[in-house]
């Protein structure tokens, strides 16, 4: 008995540290970052530099371009150079915060970098994914919009755009009438006015903070005056032309449509600095095989097509999307796996249109934070938000009404939901959102194509001829070329090439023994072109008839499936 306990204690002593790591706890992180709070652009820069300094063998930080106001768009590259060249590994591109107010996206990105590094060498899954893959992570691709949201008064939904002046109301003036934080509480809330006659609303008898609309014929004692602000340009409307006013997630080239069809699209595809910088990076990195863009809110794992006019993705690709998406629903409670145009709305020129439909990259958009998380239940009640504010946030989401003398409306009251109250995670839930979404991305990254040489055989045929047969296998779910990519000829096909000897015939082996068929290759015999790549967990066998006994070399090259070079010796 005693010995058993001793052994247990000994075992615990021996394996204690790895066990801790495997449960995901970091008792002593190398870089301490709090994930229950948010960071502005300068702070993000500091965190990224700290991490780069802590893990220089894996991380390199670069600026892929400048925002309209000249902020750097940071991108962290994560790779293990010892396990292969960057362009010979499948890469995952992750970004967030293209909409300035969708701030938690950046913390998810930062967490992903941090988690991969902290757990490298501790968790086998993490070590493998870092060794096998490359990550390109851009935490905030709209740093102007982000900082504007943090440092200026906003609502939960405002500052979606960048800050390039735009004439939103078509009056020839730029950003001349945005909202004002009249009561100075840091949020743009609502205005109401008590009136003697003609009121449209009255106080809710159950909760006088809120208003209810009066019934027809009933006289109310309040009118609502919309969001906080004044009519700066004296055009009879207020807050109709605030800062920016475009949508950089509609400025991508695939299925781009002008503003009158797609609001916020911009003057032409990639006319805005930030999407153009991201686009240039993606175009220059054909090894990107997976894409992830973080947004808020609603708890969604979205895939394309972006709109109903675009044909549904090929069946082979759908199986891939569905498998990752459905697993994602388990990793991310209260998230639903959805199709953008069908389950949400039509999008032209979205980033996912560009990645998935333009370039054939398996891509998702996650909408972070969802209301069922107020009380961890899908069974939602109408007063969830109020109750969450009062019982869980202890009033932190709501600004009580206070009197204010308005230059146009006279004596009014200002109050209501503040800017943190709906789309952004409350701080204490942020870390969980970061981790679960990171886990989802790592699943996606793991399923990127990984091609290995499964088998090879050299057989003498006599007359100085040899049959060289090579089988390549994609061990993962995502094909080395998606069905979309091969259908529309996006990017380059995969190639498998035999060097050494003179190739006199080549063929692709289809069917299985004993009903094997060999489809002859017509041209470029030594370098066989695989337009549809190597499918999901599939094998491809190629054979060459070669004249000349020599050590042969086989090279497989795939933009997204990596590269293999192997010498084949005659047994």
């Amino acid at each position: 008995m005693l010995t058993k306990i001793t052994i247990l204690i000994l075992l615990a002593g021996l394996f204690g540290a790895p066990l801790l790591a495997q449960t995901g706890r970091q008792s002593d992180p190398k870089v301490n970052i709090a994930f229950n709070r948010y960071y502005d652009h300068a702070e993000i820069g500091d965190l990224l530099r700290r991490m780069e300094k802590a893990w220089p063998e894996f991380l390199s930080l670069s600026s892929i371009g400048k925002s309209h106001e000249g902020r750097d768009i940071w991108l962290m590259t994560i790779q293990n150079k010892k396990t292969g060249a960057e362009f010979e590994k499948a890469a995952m591109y992750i970004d967030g915060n293209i909409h300035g107010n969708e701030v938690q996206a950046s913390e998810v990105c930062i967490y992903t970098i941090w988690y991969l590094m902290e757990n490298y060498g501790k968790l086998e899954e993490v070590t493998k994914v870092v060794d096998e893959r490359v990550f390109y992570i851009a935490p905030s691709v709209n740093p102007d919009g982000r900082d504007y949201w943090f440092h200026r008064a906003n609502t939960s939904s405002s500052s979606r755009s960048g800050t390039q002046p735009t004439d939103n109301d078509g009056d020839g003036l730029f950003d001349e009438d945005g909202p004002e934080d009249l009561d100075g509480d840091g949020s743009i809330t609502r205005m109401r006015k008590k009136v003697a006659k003609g009121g449209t609303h009255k106080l809710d008898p159950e909760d006088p903070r809120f208003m209810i609309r009066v019934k027809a014929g009933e006289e109310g004692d309040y009118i609502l005056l919309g969001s906080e602000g004044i009519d700066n340009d004296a055009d009879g409307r207020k807050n109709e032309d605030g800062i920016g006013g475009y949508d950089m997630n509609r400025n991508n080239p695939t299925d781009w449509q002008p503003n009158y069809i797609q609001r916020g699209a911009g003057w032409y595809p990639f006319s805005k600095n930030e999407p153009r910088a991201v686009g240039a990076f993606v175009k220059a990195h054909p090894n990107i095989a997976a894409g992830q863009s973080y947004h808020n809110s609603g708890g969604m794992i979205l895939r394309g097509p972006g709109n109903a006019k675009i044909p549904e993705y090929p069946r082979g690709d759908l199986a891939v999307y569905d498998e990752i998406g459905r697993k994602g629903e388990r990793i991310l409670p209260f998230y639903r796996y959805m199709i953008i145009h069908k389950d949400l709305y039509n999008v032209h020129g979205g980033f996912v249109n560009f990645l998935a439909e333009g370039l054939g990259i398996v891509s998702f958009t996650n909408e972070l934070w969802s209301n069922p998380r107020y009380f961890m239940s899908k069974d939602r009640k109408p007063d969830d938000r109020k109750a969450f504010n009062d019982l869980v946030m202890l009033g932190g989401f709501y600004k009580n009404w206070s009197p204010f003398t308005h230059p146009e409306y006279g004596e009014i009251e200002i109050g209501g939901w503040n800017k943190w109250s709906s789309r952004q995670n409350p701080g204490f839930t942020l870390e969980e959102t970061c981790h679960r979404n990171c886990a989802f991305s790592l699943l996606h990254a793991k399923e990127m194509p990984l091609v290995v040489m499964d088998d090879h055989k050299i057989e003498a045929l006599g007359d100085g001829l040899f049959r060289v047969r090579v089988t390549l296998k994609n061990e993962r779910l995502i094909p080395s070329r998606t069905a979309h990519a091969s259908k529309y000829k996006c990017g380059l096909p995969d190639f498998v090439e035999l060097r050494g000897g003179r190739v006199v015939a080549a063929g692709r082996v289809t069917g299985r023994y004993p009903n094997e068929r060999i489809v002859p290759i017509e041209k470029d015999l030594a370098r066989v072109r695989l337009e549809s790549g190597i499918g999901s967990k599939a094998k491809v066998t190629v054979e060459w008839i070669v004249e000349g006994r020599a050590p042969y070399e086989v090279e497989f090259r795939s933009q997204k499936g990596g590269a293999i070079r192997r010498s084949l010796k005659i047994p």
Partner: protein
Amino acid sequence: MRPTSLGPIFLLFVCGLVNGLKAQDEAPALSYMTPAQVVEGMRRLAANAKDEGLDVAVVVMGRSHQGREILALEIQPSATLPAIPASAQTKGLIKRSAGRRPALLIVAGEAGDRLIGTSIAMHLAAKFLELPPKESLELLGGAALYLVPQLNPDGAARYFEGVFDPELELGKRAFAENAGNARTVDWDRDGRSANEDVPVDLDGDGLITMMRIPDPEGAWIAVPDEPRLTKKADVEKGENGTFRYFIESRDRDGDGDYGENPSWGVHLNLNFPRGFKIHDLSSGLHAVSEPETKAILDYVHARPNIAMTLVYGAYDNLAKIPKAAKAPKGGRFRRERPTGIWSEDRALLEVFRKMRKDEGAVLGKNAGSDDGSFAAWSYYQFGVPTLAVNLFEVDTAAKKKESDKKKAKGSKSKSDPKEKSKSDSESKDDEPRDGDADTSKAKSEKKPDPVKEHLSERKQSAFSAWRPFDHPQLGKIEIGGWKPYLTKNPSEVVAGHIARAEFAFMKQLFAKLTKVTVASPVVKQLANGLYEIRLHVVNEGGIPTACKQGAYNRIVGPVLIELDLPKDRLVHGRSRNRVESLAAKAGEFHGRWVIRGKSGDSILIWVAEAKAHPQLKEVVLP
């Protein structure tokens, strides 16, 4: 044959900038200019412009792939526009259009193989600046002229420098025709170093033409009635292929394909966002992927006063005006893209077509679709009337038999692969080239049309006859076909003739630009302290203040008539009146207001349209 068989190139090498050559009808010959000469010529025009009421400036729009400058030349009256009182400067629409002059934008050289447009545009600029200042100012009528003669300088450079041919002897050149820019495209998508299997000038005649390889398995035959032309064998008609048909080349990379990775780039006239065709290498990876395309879109974005564009290129919407499309669905918030031109805007094109006819300007060929072109973008997305003119194009299609014509009307002809984009032009040789049988036939009997004569002459001379050749890989073959450039660019003498008509045509366009006039307000006292003001606003220009598509796409913007008066003094009528568009010629707005005031009060009325400087009328109450 030597490279000198390229008529225009030869002329240029020999004569340089030929300006003295006289044609039989006194039209000076027009030279084809290298990109450097275009840039230099534009700068010289700006530098030499007399300072007599005109501002002439060169604007660098951007740079091409190979770093060549892309320039615009801007000509406008130097007279300052009336100042806007400070009180009105905060009013958006007034401020927005302050300082604007309606401009005519002329764009050429989008396709690198059509040099004629560039020469014409340069000619128009030079001729315009030669006019006595009084005349040019009067012509402009307060408007501006912007010219972009060469959007694709890298493409145009091929005409002078030839194409990359690694097998050329030192000092020799090989010429091939292509519209693209200088982007490197991996046409065969084999990931090998780019341009590893470019077409080569096998027979050393300086021209890259086509090869016919005798092969009973081949898919091509000679057109029975016109054996120099080539078409795909129609198996259903019992035709059997007799040869394979490739561009003049060797299989340099040993992959079994011939000349499959030429050194030509992305076609700018496929790279604009309207009608962009995705997943097509000629169109580019995505819309506006090319620096040249981006350059002109940024340029136009900064010049919302551009009221009309004239594009010299492959597409033509005046030779054969496109059919009007069914109106798209569109509510206030959600709008569908139109599938074709609006009937209202089609009517506008009819007017310009007639103008061209009256000026004897070329009404050549409708070379198919405008998808992805600057012209399409200019109309559909920028929303201004857009005239597209194809100045010269030899009909390279096989003659249709009478019986076939009836049968195959509208169906696409399968012929030379190079002709793909032109397949729906199908213009008939025996018909006058402006397509209007009666009038022009009558005219052509009286006076020979040098362009038409040249077209039929070129139809013969621009073809290099098939000659046997011993191919190092394919054995006995024939080499021949259309000579590069000659089917799309006339001789310099004929170019001069075309230029004369184009200048006459352009001169008439300024008067067509929108011209909103505001009649003096009529004031009547209705009672003590109560007045009525009436105002009549009319568009006297030949185009609407916003064409139908310009109003639909919400880019052009309305006409604003604003009474500058405190709310409490306005009894009837609106102080701010928005009119979506004032139609060409007749578009009118009648304003009527009833106001409070007293004798001697001064009231301001603003009229602002999108493309021109706002106008101010002052009313003094009697």
